[in-house]
C-alpha cells in the first residue's frame, strides 16, 4: 500500500473568513493509479462530503474540472496521480479568478473576454448560398488546432497578463477563438475583428511567455494563434 497526502484549498464564504489548506490521506495499492478527479471523488465520498469541485464528462471533453495541481493547471479527469510524481499533492482552484467555494471559481470574467471576440461566424454576403458555404480542404485545414478548444480556462488562468488585466487582455483562450474566425475563409468580418483587437491590451499584452501552451490539456498552441493575429495587424499597418 502507498499513502498519498492531498492538501486541498478550502473556502466556504458562508462559514470561513479566509481560505485554508486541508489535508487528506488516501491509501492506494502499490500498482494502483487514479486520475486526480477520481481521487477527489473518493475523498468527497469517503472522507468529506462538503468538498466542492466541478466535474462532468470525466474524459477531458467538457472542460469543467480545470484545477491547479502541484502548481500546474490542468484537467483533473485526465491527469494521472503518478504524473504528478509526488506523494504530496497540492490542489488549488484555477489562479486569478474569484473563488466561489473550495475548488470552484467564478468564470464570468473569462467568458466576458470570450464573448468580446464574437466567437461566431459573421458573413455579410447579400445572397446566402442555397445549401452551405463550401471550403476547400486547405481552407478547412487552417482551423485545425483552433476549433478544438474546450474553454476549460487552464491557459488564461496560467497567464500573468490575464491575472493583471483580466478586464482588458482577452487572454489566450479568447484569442485562440478570435484567430479561429479570422482564419475562417467563410467569415467576412476580418477587418472589423482586427479593429476590435488593435489596442494596447487585447492582443498586445501577450508577451509570448507560453504558459498557455505549457498547460493546454488539448495540446493546442494559443501563442502561435496570437502570433498570427499580431502578424495580421502588422501587415495591414505597414
Amino acid at each position: 500500500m502507498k499513502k498519498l497526502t492531498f492538501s486541498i484549498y478550502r473556502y466556504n464564504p458562508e462559514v470561513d473568513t479566509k481560505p485554508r489548506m486541508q489535508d487528506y490521506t488516501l491509501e492506494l495499492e502499490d500498482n494502483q493509479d487514479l486520475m486526480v478527479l477520481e481521487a477527489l471523488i473518493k475523498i468527497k465520498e469517503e472522507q468529506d462530503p462538503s468538498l466542492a469541485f466541478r466535474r462532468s464528462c470525466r474524459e477531458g471533453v467538457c472542460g469543467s474540472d480545470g484545477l491547479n495541481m502541484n502548481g500546474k493547471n490542468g484537467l483533473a479527469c485526465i491527469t494521472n496521480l503518478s504524473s504528478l510524481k509526488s506523494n504530496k499533492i497540492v490542489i488549488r482552484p484555477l489562479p486569478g479568478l474569484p473563488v466561489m467555494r473550495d475548488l470552484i471559481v467564478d468564470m464570468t470574467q473569462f467568458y466576458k473576454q470570450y464573448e468580446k471576440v464574437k466567437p461566431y461566424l459573421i458573413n455579410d454576403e447579400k445572397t446566402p448560398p442555397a445549401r452551405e458555404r463550401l471550403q476547400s480542404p486547405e481552407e478547412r485545414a487552417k482551423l485545425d488546432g483552433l476549433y478544438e478548444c474546450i474553454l476549460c480556462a487552464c491557459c488564461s488562468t496560467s497567464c500573468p497578463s490575464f491575472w493583471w488585466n483580466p478586464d482588458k487582455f482577452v487572454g489566450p483562450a479568447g484569442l485562440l477563438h478570435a484567430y479561429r474566425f479570422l482564419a475562417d475563409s467563410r467569415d467576412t468580418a476580418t477587418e472589423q475583428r482586427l479593429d476590435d483587437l488593435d489596442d494596447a491590451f487585447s492582443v498586445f499584452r501577450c508577451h509570448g511567455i507560453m504558459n498557455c501552451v505549457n498547460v493546454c490539456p488539448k495540446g493546442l498552441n494559443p501563442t502561435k494563434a496570437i502570433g498570427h493575429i499580431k502578424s495580421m495587424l502588422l501587415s495591414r499597418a505597414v
Partner: protein
Amino acid sequence: MVKIASTFGRSGTHDYILLRASALILASYAVFLIAWLVCNPGVSYADWVGFFGHIGVKIYTLLALTGLLIHAWIGIWQVLTDYVKNSLLRGAIQYVVVIALFVYWFTGLFVLWGV
C-alpha cells in the same frame, strides 16, 4: 477595444512597432559603443571628445536617446498598468518617468551640442 491615452502609440500595433524599432536602435548602439570601448582601451578625455565630436556619432547618440525615450515610455507604461492598479498613483509615476526620460534626452542634446 480598450481606449488608452497614456501610452505612446496610437494603437496596440503602433506601440508594438515603435517598441521593436527602438529596441533595434538601442541594441545596435550598445554594440557600437561596446565595440568602440573594446577597440580603444584606456580611453582618454581627448578620445571621448574626438569620438562624440564626430557628426555621425552625435546623430547616432541622439537617435539612441530618442529610442530610449520611446522604448521606456511604452515599456514602463506596460509594467505600470500590470502592477499599479491605483490609476492616480499610476498616472503620477508615469508622469515622473516621462519627465525623467525627457531630462535624459535634453541633457544628451546639450552635452552633444557642447562637444
